[in-house]
């Protein structure tokens, strides 16, 4: 099996999961920091609104993340463009853009209010033993599962 095939098929969870977890450990061991992605978005937004490009480490982490995904696309050949999941199978393109925009507002405002997203609270915060992170994780998991079932019930089978 050549390298391209190995990366083109989904990584086994017992490889990808620990790899992701080690990133959390690395940020703590190197910088005494809490790995998170919303913090990276905030950093970039703040710097840009100050017309400065001197990113903090959370911002450069986000830039690296985008680069890492690009690297994967190059190494594996990327994924075929087949729309955007259940949204493009259910709604028209303009409606999907609007729904993603609204979802983005909920994600940005919600994660910033809760002090983290699936990475900052879900991975790092829980690993740190933060009770606030456990509360946040249980909440967003329950809401996301319930919302997915409700949308499936309303709009039918398109997964």
């Amino acid at each position: 099996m050549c390298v391209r095939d190995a990366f083109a098929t989904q990584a086994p969870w017992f490889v990808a999961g620990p790899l992701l977890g080690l990133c959390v450990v690395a940020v703590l061991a190197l910088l005494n920091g809490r790995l998170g992605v919303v913090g990276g978005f905030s950093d970039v937004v703040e710097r840009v609104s100050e017309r400065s490009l001197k990113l903090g480490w959370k911002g450069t982490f986000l830039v690296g993340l985008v680069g890492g995904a690009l690297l994967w696309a190059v190494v594996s050949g990327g994924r075929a463009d087949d729309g955007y999941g259940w949204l493009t199978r259910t709604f028209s393109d303009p409606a999907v853009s609007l729904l993603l925009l609204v979802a983005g507002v909920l994600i940005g405002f919600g994660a910033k209010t809760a002090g983290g997203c699936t990475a900052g609270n879900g991975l790092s915060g829980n690993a740190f033993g933060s009770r606030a992170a456990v509360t946040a994780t249980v909440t967003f998991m329950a809401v996301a599962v319930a919302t997915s079932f409700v949308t499936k019930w309303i709009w039918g089978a398109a997964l």
Partner: protein
Amino acid sequence: MIRLAAALVGVVFGFTLAWSGMSDPDVIRAGLLFEDLYLFLFFFAAMATALVGVQLLRRSRVRALLTGERIEPETLRPERRHVFGSVLFGLGWAISAACPGPVAAQLGQGIFWSLATIVGIVIGLKLHTARARART
């Protein structure tokens, strides 16, 4: 050096997210609907690895390699904002079948639907800042 190190960890993080299919909305939605357990196996394997590593670091009392600070994983008590914010976040996560890491990974892979989500995230962050200012 600190920024460069964070960027390199980011590269590993982004590569892993893309390779695990987290940037594919179908993978996340199938997980949230319990049709495929990959999402939860992946997430709990990541969390368990991080938990073991973090607690070992905390107990070893070593200093952070690049900053020299004592390693102190920050813990917080739950407040109302953690629940309120996470309800909104969970809604957005389910609709887009993506959270901030995967959205950034989509951008790197050239999935341009992510631009709509990113514009939304930026607006959401600005709203948060405006609300915080209005309250002080």
